[in-house]
């Protein structure tokens, strides 16, 4: 005995109620959803129809507002939003880097692509900014030479930086 499958399609109308399978089908495909339409004129029964999803695109004004809110939030909070974590170091790496690299003073100007070591991990600067604390930092132009000791990790840094997860 074969399992019977139900087919759904764009524009399909359901009288009274739609089956949960139809909702599943819409949610799985992510192209359609179900709207309620005018009830049956004679019986007053509810009716539903499969329709296309609308793609929401924020307006330029909305984007500008969000960006402004984000900039205001950054000013207000001293979190390290400007960095993205790219590599966890082992103890030997941390010791080597702490011994070989200078501290950058507070108010250092970070450029996009600079790296900083914090709590045993390397973070990449994604937003140019002035740091508010002294820390071990590595300018983008010098990282290759400074980290030649851990060539294997250098490769990892590049990979993570390209597709890092926030």
């Amino acid at each position: 005995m074969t399992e019977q499958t139900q087919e759904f399609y764009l524009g399909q109308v359901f009288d009274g109620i739609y089956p949960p399978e139809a909702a599943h089908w819409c949610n799985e495909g992510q192209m359609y959803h179900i709207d309620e339409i005018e009830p049956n004129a004679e019986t007053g029964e509810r009716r539903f129809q499969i329709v296309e999803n609308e793609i929401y695109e924020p307006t330029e004004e909305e984007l500008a507002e969000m960006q402004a809110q984000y900039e205001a939030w950054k000013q207000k909070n001293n979190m390290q939003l400007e960095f993205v974590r790219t590599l966890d170091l082992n103890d030997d790496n941390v010791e080597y880097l702490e011994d070989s690299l200078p501290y950058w003073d507070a108010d250092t100007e970070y450029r996009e692509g600079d790296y900083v070591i914090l709590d045993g991990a390397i973070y990449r600067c994604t937003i140019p900014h002035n740091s508010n604390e002294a820390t071990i930092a590595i300018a983008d132009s010098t990282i290759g030479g400074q980290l030649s000791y851990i060539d294997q990790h250098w490769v990892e840094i590049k990979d993570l930086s390209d597709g890092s997860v926030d």
Partner: protein
Amino acid sequence: MNDFQTSLVDIASAIRDKKNTTENIPFSQFAEAIKGITEKSTNHGSFSVSIKANSSGTATSSRTITFLEPLKSDNWQSMTQCFDDGGNSASKNYVSAGIVTNGSITKLSHVGAIRTVLTNISSSKTSMTMSFLNTASGTVTWNAIVYYASYDL
């Protein structure tokens, strides 16, 4: 406030209190709290959303969910929360929450950073659409879990 809204506020407050630390919010606790909310609702679920920012620093995504059963009364609500557990980023604990009551937004708020957020919600008795924005600079991907529920009041 009803139970759903009270729970939303409790969860948001717990996350807000931790936003200036590097400590991760235990994801299991958040999931348990949401489970308590959604057990009261016929229509609920979760999905993941991923947005990769482009070189201009902004990227959007939207998702429409059809409820397994249409809402019945003329007095109803839909709610959603999106939660970012931090991933590989130095910044953590972004969360947005939204409530739609009888078709109109009654709450849309963000706790923690607002780099990656729920920017818009709309809902009817049969579905809910959630829109997201990633304002990160560079090709940084934002991943989050989104919870949603709808219910007759």
